[in-house]
């Protein structure tokens, strides 16, 4: 009998006009190659955050899997980043 555990990024969703990337990371447990359990961990990647001077600091995606990096790089255009920066500044006063 062999129990194994592996990580799998099994769902990647793009939501809002600001191109947020919602990522689901699954931990899959298998017994002799047959899945017996699956649990989920979630996070959301946004184009960036504001610094103290309201400059947009790009989100560091260097630690993400290459396919997720590719999606973020394709979606997060200058126009999207600019729009998201505007929204972040609005959020500060809401």
């Amino acid at each position, binding site marked *: 009998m062999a129990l194994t555990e592996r990580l799998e990024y099994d769902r990647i*969703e793009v*939501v*809002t006009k*600001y191109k*947020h990337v*919602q990522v*689901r990371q699954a931990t899959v447990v298998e017994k002799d190659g047959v899945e017996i359990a699956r*649990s*989920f*961990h*979630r*996070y*959301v990647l*946004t184009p960036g955050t504001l610094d103290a001077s309201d400059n947009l600091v790009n989100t560091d995606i260097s630690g993400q899997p290459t396919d997720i990096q590719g999606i973020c790089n394709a979606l997060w255009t200058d126009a999207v980043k600019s729009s998201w920066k505007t*929204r972040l500044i609005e*959020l500060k006063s*809401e």
Partner: protein
Amino acid sequence: MSIFLGGTGSANECHDYEEGTFSMSLTYGSNTSNTGRYVKIGQLVWVRGNISMDNVGAASHVTINGLPFTVEGHSLGNLRGYNAGNISNSGMRPTNCVLHENGTNVQFGTMESAQAWSMLQYNDFSSANSPIYFTCVYSCNA
């Protein structure tokens, strides 16, 4: 796969149930050790978490990043509890969690005595490692 409850129309369709965990971090401080839990039913998301502030010097809104889904519309949640003894500004009384449209974080609204609604700040606390516990329900986009 979907299930239909109370009818067969699209408004009766439940096609998504999920539960799991998410990681939290603060905009100030380095505490990222806590893990929150979520349950998602359709577009409805319930989250629960707690985290301790290790930096209480900043004149900035207490903000917990890391929600598992982007918030669709402005929402309010409940503080399950907080360490009131550590709030140095006695006029600040945290009342609700505040989640902003298109945001992925939680802030905390306060009602100052005889004043307007404002947000809890890090420097409202007198000592580090002050914990905040919260529970929120909100709608998400997908």
